[in-house]
């Protein structure tokens, strides 16, 4: 059952049909072909360049599908700049265009005017031109896909309202409409702005809000009428005023993302009958649009001055808290799928992706990591949060958003017990899905006296934004002495019961049948053998495992475990993330600090704790007391130093922090932020991160995470994994994850530049993008300083001909090429390659 016959629902019906689904029903509350949702009033243009890989790939795939249907009208598009900052952003867009293989060029104001003669080139500084920008017919494309589905057996019901979604045993069972009840095994919600309302009928959440995008159609305009075409001139995006001008036959559509955020509630959208135009074309609030009109007149006064405002709407579209779509199976109800918060430009591609997901258990088109509905934590699913975040990012629709940009709203939502201490130490907090995590501590500025080499400036403001050289100093102090890191944002899931081991064997790749007290670092695979997760599991007792995973993947991982754990009562799942806090204690002096404060849980007279590697080996865990606080210690490291992750109950946290800080004082202990943990310490060790290096498009062989042997037990993705291993054995992997070193940071203008790590393409020496045999482009997955190595590192997958240590290549950054050298092929760390420090 697919609910909603807009671009997404229609294309989903078509793609499911192509994948072999025959017993399909597509329904919509409104009439066909335009049921009155956002598709019906969309401006229908596609600007393909996006800094986000997932969105770029989905947009390009969608555009390809519009072409296949003969519904893609290529007109070109120009983003124009009124500020120097925007001109710099265009260099970044040129770089992303290079990454995704999109033809693009920078234009002078005069060149812009050549293409758009009615534009006043005196108000702009330049343009970013993409010849492949197009206008598509989303209604007709939807109609064609729907007809394809009907030919394959899909039944279509227009003017049919959904009244309820019934569930049984936690899964969907039927949809009740005003024309009857239909039993179904799967329900896909493709209802755009109404999606939360429909999901709520089943007890599920789809976190989005209907929001207004204002648009006015003005005309008639002679020069446009004379063109005799729907779109004869390139679409202009006036980026610094957040508005666009798009020809629509004889008139011009002026659209805005600059007005105040205007939100509606999904339950308070008029019906078709109650709407003068359509439910998603609400009455225009002219006052909100006036400033945009003035700006439009500045740019195109020549033609817009006397053009009449003939049609103007407050059009509704869907916004989500992080501006990405909401896709996949709802976490609350099995077989209830969300295909929501999707715009025209990515609709057909996303429909294919969701169809693949429903069919194969995970999409093949690309990793839906940043669109996955299970990414949201409970507080992120509330209307309060959705509106606050959407209000913040709405005006950034055309904004310049830094890869490390931090949210200003909804901060302080989750705080570790150490927060007060961290604040006193001058922590600069970054948001991690609600958690406040210190990125660095300004109190550590004093470390520059001991580590003057750390104090490297980044001369370009963009490279230095949301960054501090203090991170380097914390890094060196940790490597030199000892550091303590707040890791409370970790998620801990306890999986217990007689069926725990066999259940986990099926979900994860590596063998979980290890002695109690040992750990398992393992990928989770998709059915087709790509990365679905990457985490660590502790075996705390024969029937008790604890899964530890990061803040950014906690929601996704929880969903995955709960989906695949048996429901026969043999296993229980407990989310302990809210009851446990964690401190990482790492560095050459970590053992000395711990020895001072740790004692056995069972106190015998004179009992002491032996924290040597012999008594407490790397990769194992033990329960100990620290100053009387019951703790679980796990000897492991993500930063390449000897030490522990120390877990205790939330209420003991502050005492634990103070105890460690006091004990560490004589060893020069420093608080260390995530700048070290997640970037510098990690990249020196070549550690991979889910969502960066590890994505469903890559497998463990390519990521350098394949173990010598594969366990005998069956597990998710095993067949594909075995096939990938066999193929790699025979002909080598199509790409291998490598670490590269920038050998010259100087830009053409002589400024030293430091790539931020936002999909910058790795190029050949002559500047050609590199694409592997599977069509994947080589791009930067992580970038960061390596203070202990005295260089700046990048991680990227490279095809075999380039995955050779010493190979000279280029990285494109801000539209310039910088020389890089392949420093490491595979997972062996550049720093302390044999892991001597961690295991000593």
């Amino acid at each position, binding site marked *: 059952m697919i609910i909603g016959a807009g671009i997404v629902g229609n294309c989903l019906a078509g793609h499911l049909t192509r994948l072999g689904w025959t017993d399909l029903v597509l329904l919509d509350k409104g009439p066909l072909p335009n049921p009155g949702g956002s598709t019906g009033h969309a401006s229908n243009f596609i600007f393909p360049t996006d800094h986000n890989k997932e969105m770029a790939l989905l947009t390009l795939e969608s555009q390809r599908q519009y072409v296949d249907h003969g519904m893609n009208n290529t007109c070109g598009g120009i983003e124009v700049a009124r500020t120097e900052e925007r001109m710099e952003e265009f260099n970044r867009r040129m770089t992303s265009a290079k990454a995704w293989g999109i033809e693009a060029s920078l234009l002078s104001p005069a060149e812009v005017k050549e293409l758009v003669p009615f534009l006043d080139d005196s108000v702009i500084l330049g343009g970013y031109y993409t010849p492949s920008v197009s206008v598509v017919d989303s209604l007709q494309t939807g109609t064609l896909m729907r007809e394809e589905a009907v030919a394959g057996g899909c039944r279509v019901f227009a003017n049919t309202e959904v009244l309820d979604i019934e569930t049984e045993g936690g899964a969907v069972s039927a949809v009740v409409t005003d024309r009857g009840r239909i039993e179904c095994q799967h329900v896909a919600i493709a209802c755009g702005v109404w999606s939360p309302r429909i999901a709520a009928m089943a007890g599920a959440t789809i976190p989005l809000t209907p929001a207004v995008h204002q648009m006015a159609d*003005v005309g008639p305009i002679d020069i446009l009428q004379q063109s005799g075409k729907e779109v004869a001139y390139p679409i202009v995006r006036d980026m610094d005023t957040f508005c666009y001008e798009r020809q629509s036959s004889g008139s011009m559509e002026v659209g805005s993302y600059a007005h105040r955020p205007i939100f509606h509630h999904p339950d*308070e959208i*008029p*019906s078709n*009958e*109650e*709407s*003068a*135009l359509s439910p998603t074309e*609400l*009455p*225009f609030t*002219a006052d909100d649009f*006036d400033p945009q*009109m*003035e700006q*439009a*007149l500045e740019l195109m006064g020549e033609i*817009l*001055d*006397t*053009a*009449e*405002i*003939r049609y103007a709407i407050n059009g509704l579209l869907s916004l989500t808290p992080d501006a990405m779509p909401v896709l996949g199976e709802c976490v609350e109800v099995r077989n209830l799928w969300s295909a929501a918060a999707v715009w025209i430009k990515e609709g057909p591609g996303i429909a294919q992706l969701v169809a693949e997901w429903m069919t194969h258990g995970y999409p093949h088109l690309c990793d839906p990591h940043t669109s996955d509905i299970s990414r949201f934590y409970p507080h992120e699913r509330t209307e309060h949060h959705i509106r606050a975040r959407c209000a913040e990012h709405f005006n950034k629709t055309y904004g310049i958003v830094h890869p490390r940009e931090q949210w200003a709203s909804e901060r302080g939502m989750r705080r570790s017990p150490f927060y007060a201490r961290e604040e006193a130490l001058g922590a600069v907090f970054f948001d991690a899905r609600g958690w406040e995590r210190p990125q660095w501590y300004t109190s550590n500025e004093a470390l520059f006296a001991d580590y003057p080499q750390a104090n490297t400036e980044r001369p370009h403001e963009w490279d230095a934004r949301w960054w501090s050289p203090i991170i380097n100093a914390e890094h060196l102090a940790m490597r030199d002495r000892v550091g303590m890191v707040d890791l409370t944002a970790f998620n801990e899931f306890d999986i217990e019961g007689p069926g725990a081991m066999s259940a986990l064997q099926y979900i994860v790749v590596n063998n979980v049948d290890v002695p109690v007290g040992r750990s398992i670092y393992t990928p989770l695979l998709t059915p087709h053998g790509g990365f679905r997760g990457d985490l660590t599991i502790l075996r705390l007792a024969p029937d008790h495992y604890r899964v530890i995973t990061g803040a950014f993947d906690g929601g996704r991982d929880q969903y995955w475990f709960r989906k695949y754990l048996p429901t026969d009562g043999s296993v229980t799942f407990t989310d302990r993330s809210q009851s446990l806090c964690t401190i990482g204690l790492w560095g050459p002096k970590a053992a000395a600090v711990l020895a001072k404060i740790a004692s056995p849980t069972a106190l015998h007279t004179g009992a002491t704790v032996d924290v040597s590697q012999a008594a407490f080996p790397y990769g194992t865990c033990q329960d100990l007391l620290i100053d009387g606080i019951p703790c679980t210690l796990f000897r492991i490291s993500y930063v390449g130093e000897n030490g522990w992750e120390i877990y205790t109950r939330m209420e003991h946290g502050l005492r634990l922090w103070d105890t460690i800080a006091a004990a560490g004082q004589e060893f020069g202990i420093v608080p260390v932020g995530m700048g070290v943990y997640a970037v510098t310490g990690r990249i020196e060790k070549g550690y991979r991160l889910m969502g960066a290096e590890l994505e469903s498009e890559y497998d463990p062989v390519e990521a350098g995470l394949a173990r010598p042997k594969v366990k005998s037990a069956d597990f998710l993705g095993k067949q594909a994994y075995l096939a990938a291993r066999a193929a790699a054995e025979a002909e080598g992997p199509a790409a291998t994850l490598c670490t590269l070193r920038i050998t010259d940071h100087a830009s053409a203008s002589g400024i030293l530049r430091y790539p931020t790590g936002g999909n910058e393409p790795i190029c050949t020496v002559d500047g050609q993008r590199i694409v592997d045999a599977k069509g994947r482009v080589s791009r930067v997955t992580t970038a960061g300083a390596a203070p202990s190595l005295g260089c700046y590192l990048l991680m990227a997958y490279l095809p075999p001909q380039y995955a050779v240590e010493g190979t000279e290549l280029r990285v494109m950054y801000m539209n310039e090429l910088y020389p890089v050298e392949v420093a490491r092929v595979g997972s062996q760390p550049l720093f302390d390659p044999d892991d001597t420090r961690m295991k000593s």
Partner: protein
Amino acid sequence: MRVLVCVKRVPAPGAKINVTADGLAVDTAFLGFATSPHEECAVEAAVQLVEQHGGTATVLTLGPAEAEEQVRYAASVGVHDAVLVRTDGSDWDPQRTARAIAAAVADLEAQGGPFDVILFGNESADSGGFQVGIRVARALGRPVVNGAKRIEIGDGSVRVERPTDDGVDVYALAMPAVVGVKEGINLPRYPTMKGRLASKKVTVTVVDPVDQPGGQRLVSLHTPVEAASATRILGEGPGAAPAVVDLLIEIGVLQ
């Protein structure tokens, strides 16, 4: 010449109109607001009259503070001055409305001289009382014609054409006069972007109404039952042609 055009803020027509639970008002939750269509034509007629004959056009409305939106709209298509006779937004019957407008017009005329022509819409889009223009004319002692589809200014008089079932009535009214304009008299222009921005700068004169209760009271509003229409399928494809021809003959399109 001086032209006054009177307009009313009404829920934008075109959608199903819901009534509030107490039955005393239109539920405007989903509705935009507009000027009644007949009055949009009256505004256009006023603008055209001063374009042809010179002078100024003034727009006046009686309504809540939000009705400023409607007088600014008139300003955005070429009206020069705007007056808002501000009420608390409650329902005013035609008598009460007309008295307040007549008093406001008298004040305006005392300050700026008489209006040669005062234009109304034939009737409002919401209550459709067909009364206010006539009542204002009577209160001011001026001739009035409703249903105007053509207005021409002559020497001291205004010539008004009003179609009837079998022809056109032509009236000559001595100025100052009042005319009720009917939709179709012209095609109202849309505001230009420039006009919209200029309208923001127009000063809206806000005056308190002279409030003399009328004799009509709103008891309750009902949504009329929609007349059901039956669709008869004459056939499909070329085979339907004879039935279509028969029908066209039946209704007199073909002979």
